[in-house]
């Protein structure tokens, strides 16, 4: 996937907010995932996979929701009626669940056990959905044309949308790469399904956030210079 090539210059406060929120998310996930590594506490993803992944998912969801709320202050979503907003939020939750089930099915097609470890696979699906789909739901809303513009036409604006595009693709790629260590004969606890894929997913998401922040930075400065001259 090539980087978004949009030339629209975002407003300054959106630009700074996006960069700051990216850094905040990266730090948050890193702290939640790698600080308690092998500590046998409730946040340890190796021994308490389900519980810790639930916490990570919850924190990613809340942060993205907050980002979404901040961004939507400028859009016309806030001006719509309350019932419309509630319906939209419920629909969004439904889409999120659908995405989770979709990723669950994909994981089974990739060879995850069908009868055993259902909750593990489901948690993996939920994590992938919350890094790859949920930010999109928060920022792009339910309008399909927005999604198409961002994901299949490289038409993301230089702001939260490009962050969504890059981080979604890189978190899926990360989860895909995360499957590589499973067959190795090292006999480690963390080689259990789905820990490596979850960690790969999170690492991919973090890389995506960092890359998109850098991309944003570079493009923004380029464009501003261009505009000034």
């Amino acid at each position, binding site marked *: 996937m*090539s980087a978004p*090539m*949009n030339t629209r210059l975002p407003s300054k406060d959106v630009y700074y907010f996006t960069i700051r929120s990216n850094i905040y998310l990266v730090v948050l996930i890193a702290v939640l995932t790698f600080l308690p590594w092998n500590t046998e506490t409730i946040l340890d993803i190796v021994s308490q996979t389900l519980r810790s992944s639930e916490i990570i998912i919850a924190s990613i969801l809340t942060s993205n929701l907050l980002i979404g709320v901040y961004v939507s202050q400028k859009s016309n979503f806030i001006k719509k009626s309350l019932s419309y907003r509630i319906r939209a939020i419920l629909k969004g939750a439904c889409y999120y669940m659908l995405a989770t089930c979709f990723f669950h099915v*994909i994981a*089974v*097609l*990739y*060879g995850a056990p*069908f009868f055993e470890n259902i909750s593990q696979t489901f948690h993996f699906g939920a994590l992938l959905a919350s890094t790859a789909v949920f930010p999109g739901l928060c920022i792009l809303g339910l309008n*399909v*044309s927005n999604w*198409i*513009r961002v*994901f*299949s*036409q*490289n*038409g993301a604006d230089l702001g939260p949308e490009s962050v969504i595009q890059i981080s979604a693709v890189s978190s899926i790629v990360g989860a*895909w790469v995360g*499957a590589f260590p*499973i*067959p*190795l*004969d090292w006999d480690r606890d963390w080689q259990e399904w789905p820990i490596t894929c979850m960690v790969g997913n999170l690492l991919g998401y973090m890389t995506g956030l960092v890359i998109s922040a850098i991309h944003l930075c570079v493009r923004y400065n380029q464009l501003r210079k261009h505009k000034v001259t």
Partner: protein
Amino acid sequence: MPVKKEFIGISTPETVLEQSGSLVPGVSPLKRHYNKTVLVLIDALRADFLFSPDTPMSMTKKLVSQNLALVAKAHTPTVTLPRIKALMTGSVPGFVDVILNFGSTKYEGDNILAQMSRAGRRVVFFGDDTWIKLFSDHFTRYEGTTSFFVTDYTEVDNNVTRHLPLELSAGDFDLLILHYLGLDHIGHLAGPNSPLVPPKLREMDEVIDTVYRSLTKLQGEGLPNLLIVCGDHGMSDQGSHGGASYSETRVPLAFLSTQHRSSTGGVVESEVDQIDLVPTLSELLGLPIPSNNLGHLLMDMVQEQGAEEQLASLLRNTIQLLNLLREDQPGADSEVRGFFHSTCELHSKWLSLTPQERSSAMAHQIQIKYNEVITMATSTITKKLTTYDLPALITCVIGLWTAAILLLLSQQSPVRWVVMVHVISTLYLVGHLTQFQSVWPFSGSGYLISVASLMLVLSTIALQAKKTMKDQVLEWMRSSFYGGGSLCGGFLIAGTLLHTVSLLSSSYVEEEHQTWYFLSTTIHILHLMSVILTMNTNQHPCNASFNSSTSNHFLRSCPKSDVESDQGSHSDKIRQEVLNTAVLLLAARLMRSWNQTGNKWLHLPDIVDWLILADNRILLSVLVAVSLLLILVLQSRRLTWVQTILSATGLFCVFWSRASTGALFLPFVPQMDRGILPARLSFLCVFLVLVSQFLPGQTSRPSVGHMDICLSAWTVLHVLLMRPHNTVLVAFMTVQQSVLCGCKLVLSPSAAAVFYVWMGRAAFFSQGNSNSIATVDVGAGYVGQEDYNAFPVAFLLGLATYAGPIYWFMAFLAKLNTLNPSHRDLHQVYFTVAVTCLLSMVVYAAFVVTERYHLFVWTVFLPKLLYLGMDLVIYYLLSVILVLKYYLWCE
């Protein structure tokens, strides 16, 4: 790779006597120490089954404590056939021998049984019919049980035990061999910790006890009787065997004599080699030691016989080993021989003394010296088995690399003389390597010239192509993969490279099936994604033009004006495409869980494990029948009615033959003997279907190519060669194939080639194959064969093992027809096929040479190398079909 030379000829008692007499005059001759011997061989009896404190084999354990038992180390491969050979000949199979001896032909070399029959003794055998294939000439009486149905673990053993009362009361044997298979079958079925194991061990315990009691009663003629209990190989914790892990190689070896030993025996802690049984047993029976023996006389066992006998036995063992050494490596025995002669002199001096003067200290000293000679001799022999012929290996790798690079550059302009030089020098090298197997005759001028010319070829090409090569490869990639959607095409290249790199790790070699499943699933999902993306683009043309400079390749396939006119039919098509891909993915997922293979998750239950349970026979039969019908229905679309009837008959005969062997259930039809006749009938049908396309009267439908008919014929053969439960896999493959026919997954011919090769690899593993030799289904070689014939069995075995890749290559050829390839396309297809096959081979061969002292080289890397080589041969033959088809047929 080192090939071991076998010492041909059988040693006779006379020569043994003569040789030992000439070295040490007055040495005591061969003497029989036991009257009747019973060898109870329990398949997969690993050491802790007998020696652990809470073993179910309590009676045997009690007997052992009064006698002698050892922990023996079996050599790899821990598979029954090589183990039986080792137990009877004392030789260690080299790696190549495993391959050469896959079919159990009659064994012609020297072994204990041949010695027995030469000496006019009677050998009686009951058990695994592998023995009968190997040694049937030497048995007075025998009855074999087939180890074909792993699910049966009671009947195989009852068939052995039921002979016991008669044999033991008659007692007219000299050696009775009982080979029990039940434990091994339980291991394969349920693993060593299953609840089935203790009852089976108790049953074995009773058998051993009964035999021992009867032997005590049979005592006569002044000589005691001997009962030997051993396992041929162990059992891993997953229940399989074949590798070199501790539990697979450690087996018990118990000598239970009816004459109680004077010295205390019990379990001896030190480990011995399993083949040490051979010289020991030979000496105890008063037979010459088989000439290929590498075993070492077990002193614990001959201790009873007195110093004079002991030394004589050792002398004979030493002479035999030195003879073998001289035969194997002329000149290498000179240093050992000096030491040996001094020992012999000491021995004769000791003999010349009167019995009163002989000191036990001196005897002990001689004994130690003999043992040293034996150790030196065996280590010299075995060292050769593990030395590598490095110059030869490097030459081969260089040859491979030049071939590969030549191929890569052949895109450009093949300069004739370069190719000529290359071919000639390669031929010379091959001739040279096959002629000289030993290490250093390599300084000859011919060798140097040919290597130099290879180098010359390399450098010329490199110089010539330096500038254009990079562009060439890029150009080729772009042109050949662009058609299939850039995402899928790019991934086909990336995946091939990824697989090549993954082979450099032993775990990924063991779990290679995971790689292929992963890659093939990914390509399907990528296709799904790109279909969905294009759908969106096409449904919203206004948005598509929003940023047309970057997204124009999505639009290129259908210009804007067309989109609006047939949007409805287009979205229908896309829905169809998504559905197709979903079917493909689902079929791939089911095929994946059909057979567990590899190493790490081998113990997990799979669908086949459940299907082959005896209770599910009816279900299996129904499933097989349904899948055969499905295959027929899907095929009949491509065939004329005559061909349809023929293939229907063929498929029915397959079912009939399976029913005759008892694997399936078929009412109302008589069962034929071992299903040979029906199998042959379906061979005939395959042949007729193939021939029918050339008949003048048959005008096949215009859209149907010859390849489709070949594919149908192959499917019938494929079903015939598979185990019954794998028939369902063929049905899945047929479904996938017919879906792919109309699918837009791959559009350019070269991308299709790579994609179908991937599908073939995935199919190869889903039928239960792996990169270990133990998983080759030997039974498939005997379909429709009455007895062993090297050529057809090897041929069928090859076809059956590589059935999946062959099927998908045929499918590729059929698909290629529909793509209407141009000449340039065809050229690229050849190139792509060759590169995909060669790339992994070239990299892997070089890697294995550098890693030749790796711990897993014998168990993981070399089998994979063999598989890769075989793979290359198969794809080479298939490519020849491709070339023939297009250069002779179409023009």
